């Protein structure tokens, strides 16, 4: 059955997705990472991470390991928890591969096998397979994008955990978080968001960051909204394409059973609908890839940027608090040295974060603009291509039908 399907993977399409980030994979020969293969098993996906590097850290110049989703998450979390990287936008972790919807549909198909004709069953099975493949491609693309971003980042690419991730042949023994840990995470998030609100309330001295704060907040919310709405729009589009598919089948049946002159007509129209619905499905898939995925990605990245600002804000608050403590200590003339060291540490931390944050945010903007440009251009080009294809189909079919009568 499908869950044991070994989908061998064509990465023509999905390579394109790496460019969501406008990360140029080719020029940087020192470290190139990609996912060369992927295997979908019962409830997990196994990615083959392939590295090509001239860096001395690695034992070989080219090697591959097999990784699972949890190991990607582990890597991401290790970045987040590392204080050293507080001043950087941590590339967002890839979303979990979610085949649940597909699996449900497959189940329903299996149950309903008796009630439909053989043609209908094969057709639906093909549809489901195509859907499964699309989701699969997407999840591989997201994982690859994550790795590429890390590899392209001047600081993160040197991270030890990253190298272990890339090189270590065996299982990293990273287990998924158990219930206790998940609960801990949940509480941590609650605390963090409360804190975030407090921190965000503190007015920043630096205009740049103040502006960025307000901008990012608004932007993030709007991207979230757009992302959700684009998803809904694309889902309706897919439903409409599915309907056309079923109409095509029924027309075909009518055509084969009809005994009057209409039969040829029905068959021709059925054929047309088959073809147009394939194009419509492609349109929906392309919109998904170029628009919905873009928005989703920037939703996550803008969240990561917000996190950076939060960390900076936190450091600022800590710094200001340390200053106040120092003043108090100096006033009371008690624990001054301690207060001073604390203040120094905070100051350094804050300044370090501020410096890298500024650059990161500027880079984020550049990346974002470039990514939007690329994707919007590609979206428009694909929409045009498909509309023209549709147009041609309709014209030729109409020509035949009108010629017959």
């Amino acid at each position, binding site marked *: 059955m499908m869950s044991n399907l070994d989908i061998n993977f064509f990465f023509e399409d999905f390579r394109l997705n790496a460019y969501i980030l406008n990360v140029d994979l080719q020029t940087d020969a020192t470290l190139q990472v990609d996912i060369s293969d992927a295997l979908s098993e019962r409830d997990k996906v196994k990615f083959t991470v392939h590295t090509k590097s001239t860096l001395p850290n690695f034992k070989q110049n080219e090697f591959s390991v097999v990784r699972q989703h949890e190991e990607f998450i582990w890597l991401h979390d290790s970045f987040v928890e590392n204080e050293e990287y507080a001043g950087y936008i941590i590339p967002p972790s890839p979303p979990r591969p979610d085949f649940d919807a597909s699996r449900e549909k497959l189940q329903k198909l299996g149950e309903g096998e008796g009630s439909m004709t053989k043609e209908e069953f094969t057709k639906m099975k093909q549809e489901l397979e195509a859907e499964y493949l699309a989701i699969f491609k997407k999840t591989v693309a997201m994982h690859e994008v994550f790795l590429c971003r890390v590899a392209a980042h001047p600081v993160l690419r040197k991270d030890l955990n990253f190298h272990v991730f890339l090189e270590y042949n065996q299982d990293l023994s990273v287990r998924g978080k158990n219930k206790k840990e998940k609960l801990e995470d949940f509480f941590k998030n609650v605390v963090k968001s409360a804190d975030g609100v407090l921190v965000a309330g503190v007015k920043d001295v630096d205009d740049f960051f103040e502006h960025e704060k307000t901008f990012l907040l608004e932007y993030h919310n709007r991207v979230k909204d757009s992302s959700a709405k*684009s998803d809904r729009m694309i889902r309706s589009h897919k439903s409409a394409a599915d*309907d056309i598919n079923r*109409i095509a089948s029924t027309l075909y049946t009518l055509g084969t059973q009809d*005994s009057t002159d209409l039969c040829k007509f029905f068959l021709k129209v059925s054929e047309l609908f088959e073809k147009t619905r394939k194009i419509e499905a492609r349109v929906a898939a392309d919109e998904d890839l170029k628009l919905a995925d873009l928005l989703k990605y920037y939703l996550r990245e803008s969240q990561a940027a917000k996190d950076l600002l939060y960390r900076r804000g936190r450091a600022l608050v800590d710094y200001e608090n340390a200053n106040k403590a120092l003043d108090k200590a100096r006033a009371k003339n008690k624990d001054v040295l301690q207060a001073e060291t604390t203040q120094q540490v905070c100051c350094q931390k804050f300044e370090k974060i501020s410096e890298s944050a500024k650059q990161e945010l500027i880079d984020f903007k550049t990346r974002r603009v470039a990514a939007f440009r690329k994707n*919007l251009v590609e979206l428009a080009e694909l*929409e045009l291509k498909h509309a023209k294809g549709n147009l041609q189909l309709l014209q030729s079919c*109409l020509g035949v039908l009108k010629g017959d*009568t």
Partner: protein
Amino acid sequence: MPDLLNEPVEAPKSDVLGEPPVHRDAARQQDVFEDPPKSSSKSSSVKKAASSEMFGDDDDDEDLFKEPPKVVTKKPQPSGPPVDVFTEVKSDVKVKPQVKDDPTDLFAEEALTAPAPKPSAGSSSSRTNGVHSEEQDLFSEVRSNLHTALRGISHSVSLFFSVSFFHIKLEEEESEDKFDLNISITNPEKVGDGMNAYMAYKVSTQTSLTMFRSKTFTVRRRFSDFLGLFEKLSEKHSQNGYLIPPPPEKSILGMTKVKVGKEDPSSAEFVERRRAALERYLQRVVSHPSLLQDPDVREFLEKEELPRAVSTQALSGAGFLKMLNKATDAVSKMTIKMNEQDVWFDEKIQDVENEEQHLRKLHVMVESLVNHRKELSGNTAVFAKSVAMLGSSEDNTALSRALSQLAEVEDRIEQLHQEQASNDFFTFSELLADYIRLLGAVRGCFDQRMKAWQRWQDAENMLQKKREAEAKLLWANKPDKLQQAKDEITEWEAKVTQYEREFERISATVRKEVIRFDKEKARDFNRQVIKYLESLLHSQQQLIKYWDAFLPEAKAIV
């Protein structure tokens, strides 16, 4: 003259009775056609009349008429005109071997064919008509007996010829009428207030047919008037097997919304849907050549004020009566097991039922498509607004502009989807709904035919019983009751003949109607689906325009 005619009647009778079973094939016909030299001028006239008879009758009867003239006149005959008659008509016959007709109902047919222009079957003299009718009377008895005896064997082949002639003429009439009557229904207006309100539609007719008082005229009608027209036409014509086009369905929910006065898009759509359906309904009614002749139809189109058709109300006494009738019909239909002589009807009803089933499925799917497209349209609009917001918060000016352009494109696409959904609905979905109703009406025709068959069978059974009763009386030797029994037998014999004729006639009508229906259906589907595809084409062209305009904006992002 009568002697001359009477004498040979006996002889040919035996000849013919002996011959036809042997000479049933086309070869025999060839002989007949090639034998004109033996026929007389009278025979030519007979043939002339017989040409209508020939094609309005059995093979056998055809032979029958050929024979007597041959024997009667022993005058040698030039092979000119008669040959022409036969070859000409024969070729015509080959062209349209479709419709079945009632061979024995010759007399009715004669009446019909007489006023209509005779096909170019040679010249006719006044003498023809006189002779023709005489010979008819003489041969009627012979014919009916012959017919009863031989019917079962050559039914289809004979009817094939009989009807084609009739069909040719009908076609001419049809094409005459088709383009000379245009009906449009416009201006739905709400009349009155509250629960007594109703929608009045303007029915405009444009015609050059002489049966109407003027060339263009307009009347106002309400929905119940249309239903009333259908009721009247049904009552009069459905038992003859005619296919009466069904009107759009009543919709209590839809009308209530309109009455209440909600000015929302769904009630506007409902009114538009109904208007279009009523227009199509009327167009179908007037394109039916026989229904067009009905005075009720004319009255409907012309008369200023029509009496309110109360029997169409859903909750009236007439309404309940109708429901009751429908129920009893359904039950009786289940119990009648028809002994189908003609395989054409069996196959056809099967086809009709299959097709109806598939159209229903298709209709459900198209409705789903309409809904999804409407949903898509809504979601696209919402998305467009969201993108506009995103664009306004984007600080890179070029990207911001591009995003607001994208929002505009999506807005226009939403319009497109909306229009497309409407097209899906009105052009495609409604077409399917119409034909599902029409196929139901076709099934109704078949049911009428079955009822006629049942009547005939019942009469035959009754006749059988009366004969048995007579036999019993004979045996019991009760002469007084014998006369009564004999009278009853005669009565029932006549009934049997009449019902049988009716059955033949209704079979022919149903067959003709179904063929006409098939033709119209093919034409309709063709036209509507092409229209639908053209609308899809237009959508794609618009899409191309919009995305083409957007592309340079996207490329301009720095």
